[in-house]
């Protein structure tokens, strides 16, 4: 693992665990009138959003996809639901359309930038999954002691 990837992993892990602690704190828990399944589902959505936000912050604001992801998170918190694909540029490669939908901010990028941002996004996603897996394994093994 390169030094930068290690740093990214550490940075993400710290932010993500901090978020988990906040999500898990007693004050943040909903009232017990909700069914257990609903509580778990709602919390899983918070965990998922925390994972993506933590990674976007850890990766840094010099990347377009991190800025797009964090601004989308902010507007979603204000309950706006737009996923508009604006001004699609550079349709040299037919498959790029699907890729644009998968990479945050992809619909606004030129082809070259899209490919660069995609490469970085993919690497960060892989780190995110690896860390989430390690945290889940850690909690699993602890609870079975």
């Amino acid at each position, binding site marked *: 693992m390169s030094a930068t990837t290690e740093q990214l992993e550490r940075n993400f892990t710290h932010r993500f665990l901090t978020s988990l602690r906040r999500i898990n704190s007693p004050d943040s828990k909903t009232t017990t009138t909700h069914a257990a399944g609903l509580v778990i589902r709602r919390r899983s959505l918070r965990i998922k959003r925390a994972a993506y936000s933590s990674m976007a912050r850890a990766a840094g604001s010099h990347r377009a996809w991190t800025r797009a992801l964090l601004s989308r998170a902010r507007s979603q918190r204000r309950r706006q639901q737009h996923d508009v694909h604006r001004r699609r540029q550079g349709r040299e490669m037919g498959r*790029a359309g699907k890729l644009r939908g998968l990479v945050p901010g992809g619909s606004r990028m030129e082809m070259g930038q899209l490919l660069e941002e995609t490469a970085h996004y993919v690497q960060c996603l892989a780190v995110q999954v690896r860390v*989430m*897996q390690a945290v889940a394994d850690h909690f699993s093994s602890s609870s079975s002691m």
Partner: protein
Amino acid sequence: MSSRRSRSRQSGSSRISEDQLLDLVTKLQQLLPELRNSRRADKQVPAAKVLQETCNYIRSLHREVDDLSERLSGLLETTDSAQAALIRSLLNYN
């Protein structure tokens, strides 16, 4: 890596060259588990194939994040003060 701005200021061409595009596609190919280790890794995989595999890979990563989030949520459900102490110790490790 130098940050290359796609917006140009002087010349009219805002698109990057074909060669640069192919370089980026090759770089992307190296990141994909499906294509990285295949015996065709030394050959140039068609760009459309690389983009297709990239989409598949990103979707599978998104699904893993979904699954892991649900798994973590269930695990936190069983958490108690001991788990909270674990989280603290993990944070101290950093």
